[in-house]
């Protein structure tokens, strides 16, 4: 099998999709911390395409549906899965969970459970880069629903006003929970809107990872030169909002049609076959490797050490600072007063 870039992109997207599939398995096996698991199946192209357009040292924030993005930026699926399990070996020691996976050494300033909440964080990182003279771009990933949160526009304006090395990436999976985008927004040409805030706006087909990467590369190059950008990537949320949501608010016919139309993994596979870059057997090899990797992640998470109770009080404040006084100790003291 050739080791082409196209195959690499395929593999990365498949890793994302398989990871998410295994998150579902973790849940079914009772291994996840709670059920607020937002799977990014269908959003592999924005994750991998933009991740590939980023350079080492670039930073990003993401949202409640951010697993694929972090994975595409190099995260260890074992530690991600362990975090989703709320285990000690997770990226956040089991205190953050699915919606708050972060990894500073990989430039991940964290996933965020407040819609739009992580966007200014990324722009603040861009401010740091510019102020400190670092060659680092910051990318804010968020969903189409976040386009209705005001803080996004405040952030766009400041990024443009101060010519920050920043990219806004709107992963348009066409839904915010049960609300299709046209029931949430009067106008849908968000890239044009972003232009009126002074950003360079582009749109990419979320079924085509190479197109996403190309558009993201152009915008990131501009951002690096002080012309921040906005990229909207059209995708489809293949499954429910969270693991347990069965999407009764939309037609199955729509789901079938859209999944066929917007499956970036299948699209890339077809392209590779059409271009003669790979044959069916090649995919089987990759599929098996990826499946093994992600199965191992699930087993790792299930076997991982639970977060010790003592961790309850750590990391509220920084190193050297006293931890908060436990409530029971305060009660004992009061009764001794």
């Amino acid at each position, binding site marked *: 099998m050739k080791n082409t870039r196209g195959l690499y992109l395929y593999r990365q997207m498949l890793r994302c999709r398989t990871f998410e599939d295994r998150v579902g398995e973790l849940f079914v096996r009772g291994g996840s911390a709670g059920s607020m698991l937002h799977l990014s199946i269908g959003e592999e192209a924005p994750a991998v395409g933009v991740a590939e357009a980023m350079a080492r040292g670039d930073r990003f924030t993401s949202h409640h549906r951010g697993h694929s993005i972090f994975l595409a930026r190099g995260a260890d699926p074992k530690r991600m899965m362990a975090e989703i399990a709320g285990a000690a070996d997770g990226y956040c020691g089991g205190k953050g*969970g699915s919606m708050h996976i972060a990894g500073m050494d990989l430039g991940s300033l964290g996933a965020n459970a407040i819609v*739009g909440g992580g966007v200014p964080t990324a722009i603040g990182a861009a401010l740091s880069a510019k102020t400190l003279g670092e060659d680092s771009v910051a990318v804010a990933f968020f969903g189409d629903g976040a386009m209705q949160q005001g803080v996004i526009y405040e952030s766009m304006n400041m990024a443009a006003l101060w010519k920050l090395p920043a990219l806004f990436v709107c992963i348009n999976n066409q839904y915010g929970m049960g609300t299709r985008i046209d029931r949430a927004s009067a106008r849908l040409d968000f890239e044009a809107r972003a232009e009126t805030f002074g950003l360079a706006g582009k749109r990419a087909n979320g079924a085509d990872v190479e197109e996403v990467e190309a558009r993201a590369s152009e915008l990131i190059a501009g951002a690096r030169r002080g012309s921040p950008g906005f990229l909207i990537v059209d995708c489809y949320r293949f499954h429910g909002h969270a693991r347990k949501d069965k999407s009764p608010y939309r037609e199955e016919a729509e789901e079938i049609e859209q999944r066929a139309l917007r499956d970036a993994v299948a699209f890339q596979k077809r392209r590779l076959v059409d271009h003669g870059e790979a044959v069916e057997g090649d995919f089987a090899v990759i599929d098996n490797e990826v499946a093994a990797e992600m199965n191992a992640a699930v087993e790792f998470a299930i076997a991982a050490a639970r977060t010790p109770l003592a961790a309850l009080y750590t990391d509220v404040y920084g190193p050297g600072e006293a931890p908060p006084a436990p409530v029971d100790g305060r009660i004992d003291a009061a009764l001794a007063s």
Partner: protein
Amino acid sequence: MVESTYRDALREALSDAMRADPSIVLLGEEVGAYGGAYAVSKGMLAEFGARRVIDTPISEAGFVGMAVGAAMTGLRPVAELMYVDFLGVAMDQIANQAAKIRYMFGGQTGVPMILRAQGGTGRSAGAQHSQSLEAWIMHIPGLRLAMPGTVTDAYLLLRHALTLPDPVVFLEHKSLYARTGDLDKSAPVHWGKAIIRRPGSQLTIVSYSRMIHFCLEAAEQLGGEGMDAEVIDLRTLNPLDRETVVASVRKTGRALIVSEGHLTGGVAGELSAVITEGAFSYLEEPPIRLAAEDVPVPVSPALEAASIPSVERIVATARKILRR
């Protein structure tokens, strides 16, 4: 009297009120087609139509602010914040606008709206989806604050809130929605009055919302051990029924306050002060606060549970207070 879930009782309250009062509208994220993130408004879109059950964009500051304006002009909006944690993005509209408009404008107008939200732990939903932020609201004059713990109260308090002239923040608990209990729609509301859920003579346990059930269970256990605790459910934090709490502590001489909010600067501190002010010379022990740890809510299920009061710790604390 029928059996109902807390969730269904809330829906009944909204539906009964909307049938009776055409000025009531619901608005919020996913309240319509989705039926509410916690299914409280399920089916209501079908009954009341999109003019009265309004799915909003993810714009909490905007739609809460719109509810304020709508409440000033003839509607009685019920705005739903999906999680109380999202107060962070809408607090200006609640605390600077809704709460102050009547006063700032010299009584010319009121803001008869409800802000429904749910809070608390129990789903491993993490630090930004598990908070109990009632203390923020309780501190702001002009905002009523209801926190029902029982099925009947879910109904009664919500219906009564829908008749009041002022903004009511109505906080549900995510771990109570599936809870079942008797629903007595015709019970007297006694808005602003605490209810003694269990009479007792040796210790007053004061609580509200989900913790009431923890307290009642603990009181049962304590009873089995020969300790007689009175359990008071505050039901509303504004109005706050200081009289009932004080009278009970004057009787028992001991108070245990149980809250799922953080200890420091929380509702438990206010209650402690109220008790000491009202029953000082009757107190055998200082009022004791058993509240959430002063840490963000961790996602790990074990840590999450350890961060808030448990039945066991209520029992253990009561034993300590009673020196047993």
